[in-house]
C-alpha cells in the first residue's frame, strides 16, 4: 500500500534515506527469522532427504533413494490413507456443524454471548488435556460414550480400540473443537448485506430461497478460507496418534506426521524422515493449488472488487 503522499520535496531525500535505513533495520529480525527458521531448514531438509543418515552417523548421499524407498514402504501408504481418511471426514463435518451453529446464532437469539461462549469453550482446552479427556470418554468399559449408549439400550462400541472405528471416533472427537471455525462463519454471516435478503423477500422468496440465493453464495469466500485452513491443519494431526492410539490399532491411526516423528526421533532415520517431510510438503502444495484453482468455479468474489 504505497498510497502515501511524499510531500516536502526539500527534505525528501534525507527523510527517504532515514526511512530506508530504519526500514531495513526494523525488518531485519523478521528476515533473519525467515532465513534461520524457515528457508534454511527447508533447504536443509531437502538436502537431508537425499541422504542415508542415522543420528550419530555421517550422512551418505543416495540421491532419490529415500523417495524410491517410500514408494515401496507399506507404512507410508498406510499413513497417507489414514491421514486422508481423517481429513476427508473431519474437515467437512466441522465445516457443516460450525456453519449450522453459526446460522442459528445469527438469528438474533437472546444471550448470544452466552451461546457463543458455550460453543467456543472446547476450543480452549489444551490439546493434551483434550486428548486425555477423550481417552476416558472413549473408554469401552466405563467411558461416557458407552455408558450413555448402554443406558439407552444401544450396543456399545470399542471406539479408538477397534481398527474399523478408530478413525471415525477421532473424527467425532475433532468436531468438538469447532469454535474457531464457527466464530469466523458468524463474522461472515453478520457481513452479508441486509438489502439482499430484503430483495428476495420482496420477490416472494421464503427462508429456503434466502439461504440458497443469498446466504450461501455470499458466504463462499468464508467457506473457502475455512476449508483451506482446515485441510492444511487437519492433515498435520499428531497428538491423537501420539497420546491416544500410538498409531494403532494395527496402524489404523498411523497419521502422517506421527509416522514422520517416529522415523526421525524413534528410529533415528533422519534422511528418510526428511523425505517424508518433503513429500508431505508437496502434497499440501498440490492440494492447496487444486483448491484454489477449483475455487474460481464456486467462490463468489463480488466483494473483492468493491474493496
Amino acid at each position, binding site marked *: *500500500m504505497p498510497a502515501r503522499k511524499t510531500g516536502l520535496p526539500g527534505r525528501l531525500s534525507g527523510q527517504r534515506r532515514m526511512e530506508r535505513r*530504519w526500514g*531495513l533495520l526494523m*525488518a531485519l529480525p523478521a528476515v533473519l527469522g525467515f532465513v534461520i527458521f524457515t528457508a534454511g531448514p527447508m533447504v536443509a531438509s531437502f538436502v537431508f532427504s537425499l541422504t542415508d543418515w542415522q543420528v550419530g552417523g555421517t550422512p551418505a548421499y543416495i540421491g532419490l533413494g529415500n523417495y524410491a524407498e517410500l514408494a515401496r514402504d507399506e507404512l507410508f501408504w498406510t499413513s497417507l490413507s489414514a491421514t486422508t481418511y481423517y481429513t476427508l471426514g473431519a474437515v467437512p463435518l466441522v465445516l457443516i456443524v460450525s456453519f449450522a451453529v453459526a446460522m442459528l446464532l445469527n438469528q*438474533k*437469539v437472546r444471550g448470544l454471548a452466552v451461546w457463543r*461462549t458455550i460453543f467456543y469453550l472446547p476450543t480452549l482446552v489444551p490439546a493434551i488435556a483434550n486428548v486425555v479427556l477423550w481417552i476416558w470418554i472413549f473408554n469401552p468399559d466405563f467411558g461416557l460414550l458407552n455408558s450413555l449408549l448402554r443406558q439407552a439400550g444401544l450396543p456399545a462400541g470399542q471406539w479408538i480400540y477397534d481398527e474399523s472405528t478408530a478413525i471415525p471416533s477421532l473424527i467425532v472427537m475433532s468436531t468438538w473443537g469447532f469454535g474457531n471455525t464457527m466464530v469466523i462463519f458468524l463474522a461472515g454471516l453478520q457481513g452479508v448485506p441486509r438489502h439482499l435478503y430484503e430483495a428476495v423477500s420482496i420477490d416472494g422468496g421464503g427462508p429456503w430461497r434466502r439461504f440458497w440465493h443469498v446466504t450461501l453464495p455470499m458466504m463462499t469466500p468464508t467457506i473457502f478460507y475455512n476449508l483451506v485452513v482446515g485441510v492444511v491443519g487437519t492433515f498435520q494431526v499428531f497428538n491423537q496418534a501420539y497420546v491416544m492410539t500410538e498409531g494403532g490399532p494395527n496402524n489404523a491411526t498411523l497419521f502422517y506426521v506421527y509416522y514422520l516423528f517416529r522415523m526421525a526421533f524413534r528410529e533415528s532415520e533422519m534422511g528418510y524422515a526428511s523425505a517424508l*517431510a518433503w513429500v508431505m510438503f508437496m502434497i499440501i502444495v498440490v492440494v492447496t493449488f487444486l483448491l484454489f484453482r477449483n475455487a474460481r468455479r464456486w467462490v463468489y468474489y463480488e466483494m473483492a472488487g468493491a474493496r
Partner: protein
Amino acid sequence: MTVTEAPPRTGRVAPAAGSRRPRRYGKALVYLALAAGAVPTLLPFVWLVRSALMRDAQMFVAPPEWIPSPFQWSNFTEALTAQPFWLYFVNTVVIAVISVLGTVLTCSIAAFSFSRLRWRGRDLTFAVLLSAVMLPYAVTLIPTFVMWQELGALDTFLPLTVPSWFAGAGGGVFNVFLLRQFFLTIPFELDEAAYIDGASPWRVFWTIVMPLSKPAVVVVTIFTFIGTWNDFLGPLLYLSDEEKYTLSLGLASFQSVYLTQWGYLMAASAAVIAPIIALFFFLQRYFIEGVTLTGIKN
C-alpha cells in the same frame, strides 16, 4: 440442517398479517436446536468435572452416576503433588511470557517497517516472508532440531523461546500480517507531523503507532500465549529433564504413568484446562475479535 434455520427476519422485512405465529415457532426451533447442540458440547466438561471429584469406586458403577458423593477433593491435591505440576506451571508461564514478549515486540517492529516506512523491495520481501504461514511445520522440524542439537541447546528453553524473538519465525509471521493490517488504518499524517518535528522512526513507532494499536497487540498477545501454553510437540522434542517439563508435557507423562487412575487424571486435566478458561472469561471480547480478525484475512 438448514431446515431449522428458518430466519425469523421474515417478520421484520414484511410484517404481513399472520406472520407472527410462524415467527414464534421459528424462534422456538432455533432455541431448541441450540440447546440440542449445547448438550453434547458441554457434556464432556461435566463428565470431566464429575470424574475429577469422584472416588474410583463410584466412578465405575453402572449406570453412571453424575453427582460425586462424597466430593473427593483430595484427587486434586494428590494428582497435583504426585508430579511437580506447580513446577510445570511455572515453566509454562516462563516460556509463554518470553515468547509473548518476543513475538509482540519483534512482530510489531517488522509490521511497522512493512507498513509505514518506504524502502525498495519492501512489499516483495513481505510477500516472501508471509509464504511461511502456509508451510507445514513438519518440513522444518528435523533441520531445526539438528540445529539446536548442534548448538547444544537441547533440554533448554531456548528452542521454544528464541524463534519468537525473530518476529515469530515460521507460522508466527501471521502476527506481522495482522499488526501490519492494523497499522495501515492509522492516519499517516501523524507520522509526517512527527518527522517534521525531527522524530526518528523508532520514536514514531514507539510513541505514536504502538499506543494506538492496543487492540491488535492484545489479540497477538492472547493468541501467542494460548499457542505456547498448548504447544505439545515443541516441548516433547526439546525437553527431556522432568524439571523442565511444561504442563502439556507433564500431563502427557502423568497420563502414561497413572493410566488407570481416572480420578487423578481428570483432576490433573481439569487443573491444566482451568487457567485458560479463566483467561478466556476475563478477555472474552478480545478472543472473539481476534478469531474474527484472522478469518477476515481473506
